[in-house]
Every structure is written in structure tokens, then in C-alpha cells.
């Protein structure tokens, strides 16, 4: 099976800290890949390396079969990203932000207009499309970031906590949209702390802990290695070493 994302020994250091430690990702094309890990495990650093925001300290990677070091712009034309932190111009409106993205992707005027209208409707941002991003709430910014990622009709989506701060109605619509995107052959690489969402949407899972990839495979493969009927949450907690029984109980808390 060809891979949308493939890394070998991908490592990223910040001084003494090894944020990502020689991970070998294999994300099949047309899959919904859930990338899980506790806070500070290295999920966002991995996404930043894969999307070109950070250079790996060592290791190699191929995105959609291409080498990011050589084909940076070719890859970016086929990829949509919601990064961990906001990546929006504060002083542009939603329409202007999307127009900028359309222009740099070379979309024609009619396509741009149609896609912007549909995306703004989907994200329920139509009423605020003329407001500057500076005046947006956290959830509205997240929705706009998702619209930005979807606008150029990418083949691969990197979504870092896309549902954070998004209301239930929009969240459901987005989940359906992403499922449809994968059904049509697109690939989603998603990180989320909401394991239920990942369990429902993802068909492949990777779990990172202290910068190392501790598990990877289809959901069925992960389950086969655990006790029968284990939920993804149980598998995750088992792998990252969570110890609920010995955790402080805060009995002073009324």
C-alpha cells in the first residue's frame, strides 16, 4: 500500500530536549489516521515537521510520495493544515483570508467565490465574514482555520486539535465532512485529545509518548494486542502508562 505520509527515524531536538525521537510513521493513502499522545508527547512537533514549519534534526520523510526538502511547494499545493497555534492574519476578514489562500493556490475567481460561500455557510461564519479575525472568538478562529485548510481541495489534511472550541453542531458537520473526504480518497492526519472522536472517525492510529511512537496500526490491530473489547481509551492509557489508581485523589477537595 502506498503511503500518504512516511517517515524514517524522524527526530527533532530543541537543545537538550528530544521532542520527537526517531519515529517511523506510515499513514496509508485514503486513511483517517488518529495521532494520539499525552500533553507534551511530541504530536504538534511531529505535525510541524511534516508540514515544513520545523526542520527535522535527523531522519527522512515523504509526503504524498514527495520529498519535502525538494518539493516543498508541490506538497503544499496538495496539503491543508490546521496548526496547533492560530495561523491567521488578525487584520483580515474571513473572506479576505480565504481569498488570499485562493490566490496563492491559483484558484480562478468563480471557483474561489463558490468555495468561499460554501465554506462560510458550513462553518456558520457567513454573518461574520466581514469582521476582522481580531474580533473573532476562539471557536470562530478554529472554524476559519479549517475553512482555510479545506479551500484548496487538498489531498491530505493535517488537523491539530480541530474540534477544540467548536460547537456541537459545527463539530458534527465537520466530522461528516471529513468522513466523506476520506471516503473519496483523501487522507486525514488528526491529533485530538478527545479519544471518542478519534475512535469513531479514525481507521488507523499512532500513539506517541515522550517523543517515541509506542504503537501504530489499524484500530483492529491495536485492539488485537490488548484485552478483548478494550476501548481506544483503555489501550491509550495502558500504553502511555497512566496509573489512575495511584493518582492523587485530592481528598481535601469538597
Amino acid at each position, binding site marked *: 500500500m502506498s503511503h500518504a505520509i512516511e517517515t524514517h527515524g524522524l527526530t527533532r531536538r*530543541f537543545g537538550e530536549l528530544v521532542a520527537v525521537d526517531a519515529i517511523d510513521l506510515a499513514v496509508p493513502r485514503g486513511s483517517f489516521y488518529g495521532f494520539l499522545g499525552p500533553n507534551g508527547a511530541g504530536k504538534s512537533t511531529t505535525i510541524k515537521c511534516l*508540514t515544513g*514549519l520545523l526542520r527535522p534534526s535527523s531522519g527522512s520523510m515523504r509526503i504524498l510520495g514527495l520529498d519535502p526538502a525538494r518539493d516543498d511547494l508541490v506538497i503544499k499545493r496538495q496539503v491543508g493544515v490546521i*496548526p496547533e*497555534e492560530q495561523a491567521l492574519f488578525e487584520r483580515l476578514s474571513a*473572506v479576505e483570508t480565504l481569498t488570499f489562500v485562493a490566490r*496563492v493556490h491559483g484558484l*480562478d475567481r468563480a471557483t*474561489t467565490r463558490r468555495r468561499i460561500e460554501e465554506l462560510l455557510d458550513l462553518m456558520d461564519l457567513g454573518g461574520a465574514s466581514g469582521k476582522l479575525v481580531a474580533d473573532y472568538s476562539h471557536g470562530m478562529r478554529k472554524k476559519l482555520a479549517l475553512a482555510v485548510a479545506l479551500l484548496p481541495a487538498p489531498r491530505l489534511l493535517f488537523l491539530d486539535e480541530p474540534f477544540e472550541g467548536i460547537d456541537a453542531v459545527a463539530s458534527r458537520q465537520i466530522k461528516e465532512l471529513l468522513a466523506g473526504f476520506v471516503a473519496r480518497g483523501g487522507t486525514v492526519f488528526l491529533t485530538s485529545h478527545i479519544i471518542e472522536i478519534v475512535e469513531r472517525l479514525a481507521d488507523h492510529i499512532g500513539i506517541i509518548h515522550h517523543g517515541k511512537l509506542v504503537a501504530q496500526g489499524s484500530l483492529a490491530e491495536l485492539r488485537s494486542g490488548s484485552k478483548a473489547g478494550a476501548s481506544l481509551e483503555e489501550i491509550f492509557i495502558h500504553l502511555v502508562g497512566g496509573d489512575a489508581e495511584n493518582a492523587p485523589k485530592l481528598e481535601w477537595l469538597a
Partner: protein
Amino acid sequence: MTGRIVLALAWLRWRLTVNAAKSGRNRGTLERFSRAVAAAAPILLALLVIPAMLGLTFLGVLGGWAAAARPEASAAVVFIVGISLLAPTGWAFVRPFVMAKQGHPEREELLRLLPIPARLLRHLELVKALLDPLFLVFAPGVLALAAGAALGGRGLVTLVALAGGVGFLALLACLSSLLSLASQLLLRDRQRGELVALVFILAISALGFLPQLFRSDARTLRPPSPPATAEGAARPGHAGPPELEELPLGLRVLPSFQLAQALAGATRGQLAATALPLGTLWALAALAYGLAAPLHRRLLETPASSGTRRTERVEGAGSGSPFVSGPVAAVASVQLSTFLRTVRGKATVALPPVLGLFMALMLTRWNPSGVPGFFASPVWAPVLVALTAVLNLGVLTCNQFAASGTGLVLELLQPVSARAMVRGRALASALLCTASLVVAMVPLLLVVPRAALPTALAIALAGLAAHLAVAPAAAVVSATFPKTVNLSRLGQEDQPHPLAHLAVFALQGIAAVPPAACILVAQRLLGTPWLAPVLTAVWLAVAGILAVAALPLAERALVARRENLALVVAGR
């Protein structure tokens, strides 16, 4: 409980300062150096405060002693007190506004969520005002007046200096605190705040010109001549400072002159003349303190609002122009839009035309007779306007990448090459410079004498040439020393990295030499004034070609530093 909260808040302030210096330990050498330089600036300021404070304390003691022990010097002392304390008085009015535009609303929000009495939070504003570096510099000097007067052996002067000094400082702190709360209320609506900030910047800039413009004496540029009236000549003892009563009313009502008048009354032993200004100081302080409470309550109890911009038209994607590629045009267009929607952006573009208009009005009333040197020629006006336009834009261009904020990350994630990012920004700033210079120069070109027209035209072209020549270096510098800025705030928050600013400022000076030489050669050596704009236009073309040729250097710098830039704008 209050003491515990105050200690906790002092500890918070201390940790925020210490931790700010600690950040960036896991970053590259250049970024660590860059942060160290940026962190050193406030430390240098603090080091300057101490000797200034000591010096003014000494002068305060000396002044107090002279006022008490040397009757012949007392008039001069009280006048100097009134004049020198105009600085903290003026700052008491300006500071709240500047601080409100550069504060940390999220920190204020957190404090409001904690169990801290509202009254204590309000008093914190007073403490902040008193701990302001400028107040810290002047406050010991003000209090030292009483110590000096005590040394001079005059009980009344000592008492008045003490009561007046404390009253003066209390008034400034209460006034500053009141205005700070008012500013926070006014500025918490983003659009309203930005509009007010823009008006504030333009007003402050124009303030220096207004007196010149509205003087009844039309010779605006002529230095003030000494009084040669018969009355002046007949008052041999009047060579010193004027009597306080002779000062304009607008000056006499200010707190610093209230203190001066109280001191003057005390040195003359006139209790009545002392009581009124002293009472005014204390009454105003009490009024400002009293008004702060309802204002603070309103600030806490009413929600902040945010402005809307109704431009919901869905625009199509342009495909660039015959001269620039689509991505370059897209980057340039976004740069122009985002920059012009910030206070700094609006001020950068609006200031030169406003200045040009003022200069043009001044030139219409201008009389060169008796004006020495450079100012004898009307070309000083276009020189000042061009300098303002180019220097103001330098503040943007030396931090052009980080100034995009997190929008820069959006660009880095899109299929936009480093070439398009650099060229788009260079195009945007060149367009801004051209537009700003053209609009600013039109009124000047209409009013300058015909003989000065070619030079004025050449100066406008020289300004643009200097801007273009520096563009590649500015891009390199801004990739090397980025700083997160908020161009809609005032003070440190809208300022670029000091090293970047300094480097671009120096380069602008160097870049101004060739076009200045073109003008001098045409006028002085060849004696053909109309050759000046022609030569400068040729240099402008050369500078443009050189700039375009050098842009790949900036592109390489951007590629090398893009990771650091992405981290800096993300606040890492």
C-alpha cells in the same frame, strides 16, 4: 489580607520579569543573542533612573535651601520648580493612554477573577502610577525641596514644600490612575481604541506645529527676539525668570505651577497666597481619587464590545498583474491591507501628509529674512516630510516578517515561495512609501517658491530611492532579528527589535548619501537646479535595479531563518 495580596502581586510582577529573561533557552545562538539584547534595554533604562533620581534629589535639596535661605534666589527657584515639574505633569496625562494601549488585558482579566477586593485593584493603579520610571525620577526631588527648606531654616517654607510636594505627587498619581481607568474604558472597544490612538499620535505630532501656525506674528520661523521695549529696558532687575503671575493662565493652573505658587507665597511669608494653590492641589487630588471609584466599577461591571467591519462581499481571486506574479501580488495585497488596518500603519501613512499640510501652511506665512543656515531655504520642509515618511516606514520594514504575526505561519503553510514572500513585502512597502510621499509632497510643491521646486521634487525622489536601496537589507535584518509586535498598541509593543531598528536606521542614513550628492552636484557644482530631479530620478532607477538584484539575499535569509520566525510569531 491586603498585605498578603500585595505581596503576592509583587511576587507575580517579579516572576514575570525574571521569566521573561529566561525564555528561549532551547533556541539558536542568534535568537538567544537577539533576546538578550531586547531584554537589556529595560535594564539599561533602570540603570539610568538611579543617577537621575539622585541628581534631582540633590537639586531638590539645593532648591529648597535656596528658596528658604536666599530670598533673592527664591523667584528663580520657584520658576524652575514649576517648569521642571511640567515633565511629570504632562506624563501624568499621556501615560494612562499609552499604558492602556500597551497593557496586558489577559493579566487584568485574571486578576479580576481572583478574590482581590475591587478597591485594592483600583489602588494598584495608583501604585503603578507612582512606580512609573519618570515619577520615580522626580518624586524624591519634589520631596527633597522640603528637606532643603528645613536646612535653610524657614519653618513655613518647609511645611509648604512638604504639604505641596506630597499634594503634587498625590494629585499626579490620582489623576494618572483616573485617566488610566478612563482610557481602559475608552480603548477596550478595538475600533474605537484604534481610532483614538491614531488621533492621539497625529495630535502629539502636530502639537509642535500648532503654536507656530497660530502665532499672531506671521514670521513663524524666525527665532524669538529678545524684548527690546522701553519697559523691558527700564526693568534692570527683570533679567531673571518672569514672575509667576505673568505666566499665561493655561500654564499657571497646571499642578506644577500650583506647587510653585504655593512655594512662592511661602517664601514671601504670605499665608493667603500659599493656601489657595495648596488647597487646589489637595482638592484636585481628592476629586480625582473620588471619581476613580465609579469609573472602576463601570470598568468591572460592563462588558467589552468589539467593532464590526461590514465588507461581506466575496471577492474572486486575482491572477496578479502583468508585472508581478499572482503570489507576489497576493502577498503584497495582504501586507497592504493588514498594515493599513493597524494604528501604526495608519499613522505611518497619514503622518507625512499631515506634516506636509502643516509645513505647506507654515510656508505660506514663511519669511526667510533673519533665519539662519539650512532653514533659510524652503527645502527644509520637503526634507522633513521625506525623512518622516522613510524613517516611519523603516520601523515596519525592519520587522516585516514578524509584523505579520501568526499570519506569517499561514503564509509558510501555503505554497508561497520565499521569493514571493520577500518580493510581495518589498512591493507593498514601496507602494506605501510612494503613496505617502506623493500625498505629502503635493501641498508642499504647490507652495514652495518656484526656485525651490526642482529641489523639492528631487527630495521626494531621493526619499523613495533611499527606501528602495535599503529594502533588501531591511528584509535580511527582519528575518534575523524578529520581534512579535502589535502594531495597534503604543509603546514597546509596536516597536521592532532594537538591533533591527538601529541597523535599518543606519542603512537609511547611508542610502540617503547618493541622492543627496545628486542634488548637491546639480545645484552647487553644475548650477543647474532642474538637473537635480533628473539625476535623482536616474539614481532612483539604479537603486530600484540594485534592490531587485539584491533581493535573493533576503530570500536566502528568510529560508535560513523561517523556522525561527515561525516560532517567534507563535510566541515561543
